[in-house]
């Protein structure tokens, strides 16, 4: 029978006994009471007796041991009293079982809600998809689809697997997987994520990941692992729970002895205090404090696209002093753009520069070509092209001798530079400035910069408000690194670091205090692993399972703040739960033992049992409230 049904049955059987507490005599008197209490004790409470017995045979004790010992003591004493004409307490054993069943039922309900995250994620998976095979659209179960197949998605349909759009365009709701609230536009070449929902148009995509490799499967795996993990703070509860029940049993015996032997109370009074001690103690509250909060915290994170990998990570996040960002692609967009053009004829400057850069593979060339494309300026033919290492490019654009490069290149060609002041100003802003010249005359300057993400200053300000000191690490030269850092409000800068040296720099920084490192999960894996807390920003459908303690599914800097807040709140909730569980037991046991009886305060064992049942429910409820707290 389910716990719920057992509770209702137990309630029906116990109600007449409860009524008898108010002096109303039941038909059949004490014998009716004994029959009802026996039915509750050995019918509804059988599971506790068996649980306790199995544990006992294994020389172990658990919650069932306390329930069985407490209720059996009250029940057996009442049977003895029935035969000897003394006061009986059948209602106590029956009500105790009823209350504990109520607690178990409520606990099951709340625990079920706390562990819903993984089920919800698994439920997102599409069952089948329209696959184009031999030119025909066929409906295929998702597990039979392989990498490289073309899938058609109509408006309102789920994107079945991860892939790349090959035809058509649409906007896709990715919120259920990445936490991104706005629909994401998809064009040929863009990646799509399985389990997201197509909104407006029809498109086709080629599958790139199936089965356990999809982003959703990786998220499920990561969240499952996190929920199975343990937080170091739990160690205390684990140690206590090892000897909790036997110690409570000993305390109950001592309570009986103190009342009966030292204070001269009757056997009945001493026994009632001892029973109250047994049934008020609750090891479950201690045992549930950490895993339920961890479950709710990691589940909420998964919903927001924040994957916290373990309980240990939560503890690391609590006392971080420095938060170090990799600059390129994390604080900045990772793509240089033309920010300034200085000179009389902007069109000519860009066109000449783009023509020279068209054959170049330099990263800055892309920015200039992109600008020319935006301004609809066609690239002109270039002859006598020459890339001068570390300086720039020379060549003939449409037959005219032209060049683009740094100050050294222009000086090498003994051309006068007219825009010195503007150049210095742009360089001071951390921009890379290129001079464009034609026929020994400088046409103008082009400044290029990998610009900070729009929300970067706000994110940095919020992190500072949280008491963290932001820092930036980059391969850029000191001057341009400092210029970007200044725009963002970052004071600590580690510049001119080669990619392979990042991890070493992070480790060195740890001598000042605990460091969280934020970078992309692929290139920054060693630095993420070297920090006290690694936060890997995701890109597309690859999440760095191995790198970092926290993985952000979407590439949004604001999630760094959310991740740290969620980690701190979850850890705070674990501490609160543990504190409550410890205080409850520390205060409850002396109270049940009659420590305040001289002030007229005593606890009926049935009420002590209700308190015990509700204490574990309150811990789970406290964890559930984490899903509503403001992040």
């Amino acid at each position, binding site marked *: 029978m389910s*716990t719920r049904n057992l509770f209702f049955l137990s309630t029906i059987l116990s109600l007449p006994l409860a009524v008898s507490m108010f002096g109303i005599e039941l038909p059949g008197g004490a014998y009716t009471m004994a029959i009802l209490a026996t039915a509750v004790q050995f019918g509804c409470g059988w599971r506790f007796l068996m649980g306790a017995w*199995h544990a006992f045979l294994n020389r*172990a004790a658990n919650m069932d041991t306390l329930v069985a010992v407490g209720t059996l003591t009250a029940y057996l004493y009442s049977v003895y009293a029935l035969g000897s004409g003394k006061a009986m307490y059948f209602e106590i054993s029956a009500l105790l079982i009823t209350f504990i069943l109520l607690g178990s039922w409520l606990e099951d309900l709340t625990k079920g809600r706390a562990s819903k995250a993984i089920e919800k994620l698994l439920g997102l998976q599409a069952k089948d998809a329209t696959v184009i095979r031999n030119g025909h659209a066929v409906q295929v179960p998702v597990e039979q689809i392989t990498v490289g197949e073309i899938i058609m998605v109509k408006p309102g349909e789920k994107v079945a697997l991860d892939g790349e759009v090959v035809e058509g365009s649409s906007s896709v709701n990715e919120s259920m997987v990445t936490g991104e609230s706005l629909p994401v536009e998809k064009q040929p070449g863009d990646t799509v994520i399985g389990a997201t929902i197509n909104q407006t148009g029809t498109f086709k995509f080629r599958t790139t990941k199936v089965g356990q490799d999809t982003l959703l499967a990786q998220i499920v795996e990561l969240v499952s692992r996190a929920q*199975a993990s343990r937080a170091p703070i739990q160690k205390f509860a684990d140690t206590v729970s090892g000897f909790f029940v036997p110690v409570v049993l000993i305390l109950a015996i001592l309570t009986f*002895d103190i009342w009966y*032997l030292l204070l001269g109370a009757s056997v009945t009074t001493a026994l009632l205090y001892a029973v109250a001690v047994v049934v008020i103690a609750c090891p479950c509250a201690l045992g549930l404090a950490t*895993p339920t909060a961890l479950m709710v915290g990691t589940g909420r994170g998964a919903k927001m696209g924040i994957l916290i990998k373990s309980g240990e990570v939560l503890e690391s996040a609590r006392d971080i002093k420095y938060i170090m960002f990799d600059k390129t692609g994390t604080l900045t967009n990772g793509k240089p753009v033309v920010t300034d053009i200085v000179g009389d004829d902007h069109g000519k400057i860009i066109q000449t520069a783009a023509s020279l850069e068209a054959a170049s593979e330099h990263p800055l060339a892309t920015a200039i070509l992109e600008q020319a494309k935006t301004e609809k300026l066609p690239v002109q033919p270039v002859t006598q092209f020459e890339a001068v290492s570390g300086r720039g490019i020379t060549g003939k654009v449409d037959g005219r001798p032209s060049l683009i490069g740094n100050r050294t290149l222009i000086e090498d060609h003994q051309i006068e530079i007219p825009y010195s002041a503007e150049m210095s100003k742009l360089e001071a802003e951390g921009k890379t400035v290129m001079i464009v010249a034609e026929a020994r005359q400088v046409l103008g300057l082009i400044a290029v910069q990998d610009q900070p993400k729009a929300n970067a200053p706000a994110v940095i300000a919020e992190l500072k408000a949280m008491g963290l000191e932001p820092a930036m690490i980059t391969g850029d030269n000191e001057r341009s690194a400092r210029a970007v850092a200044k725009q963002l409000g970052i004071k600590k800068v580690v510049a001119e670091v080669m990619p392979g040296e990042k991890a070493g720099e992070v480790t060195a920084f740890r001598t000042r205090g605990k460091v969280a490192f934020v970078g992309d999960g692929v290139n920054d894996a060693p630095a993420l692993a070297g920090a006290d807390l690694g936060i890997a920003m995701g890109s597309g459908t690859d999440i760095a399972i191995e790198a970092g303690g926290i993985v952000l599914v979407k590439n949004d800097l604001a999630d760094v703040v959310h991740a740290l807040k969620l980690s701190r709140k979850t850890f705070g909730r674990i501490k609160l739960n543990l504190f409550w569980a410890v205080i409850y037991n520390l205060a409850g046991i002396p109270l049940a033992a009659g420590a305040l009886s001289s002030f007229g305060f005593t606890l009926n064992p049935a009420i002590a049992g209700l308190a015990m049942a509700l204490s574990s429910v309150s811990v789970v409820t406290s964890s559930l409230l984490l899903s509503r707290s403001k992040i």
Partner: protein
Amino acid sequence: MNQLIVGLGSLGLIGLIVWWFFGKPKSTITNAETTATGQMVRITVSGGYMPNRIQLKRGVPAKLIFTRQDTSSCFDEVVLPDFGIKTKLPVGQAFEVTVDPAKPGNFKYSCGMNMFHGEIIVK
């Protein structure tokens, strides 16, 4: 006289509790059986995990087959944190948990509330 009997009885009971629960001898180690696909151990869940100390060969896929006989809610779940596994155990059925013993070491597993423990030794 009654008081003396109660006092001595209490002391005896306390002694029994201490001996029974804290004087438990360390259980013996059970080796996994070799199967065609790897290795396998059957674990009965009844008032604890029996056997509760099992030894697996490193690098050989292992199946832990839990048969839960105990309806106590303590055993609703089994958690193997080092293997990233937390799963519900149905009552009265053989439930298979697959682990990958890639690293050598001693790994604890427990019930959902960490009251009952077992140990996996990978060698």
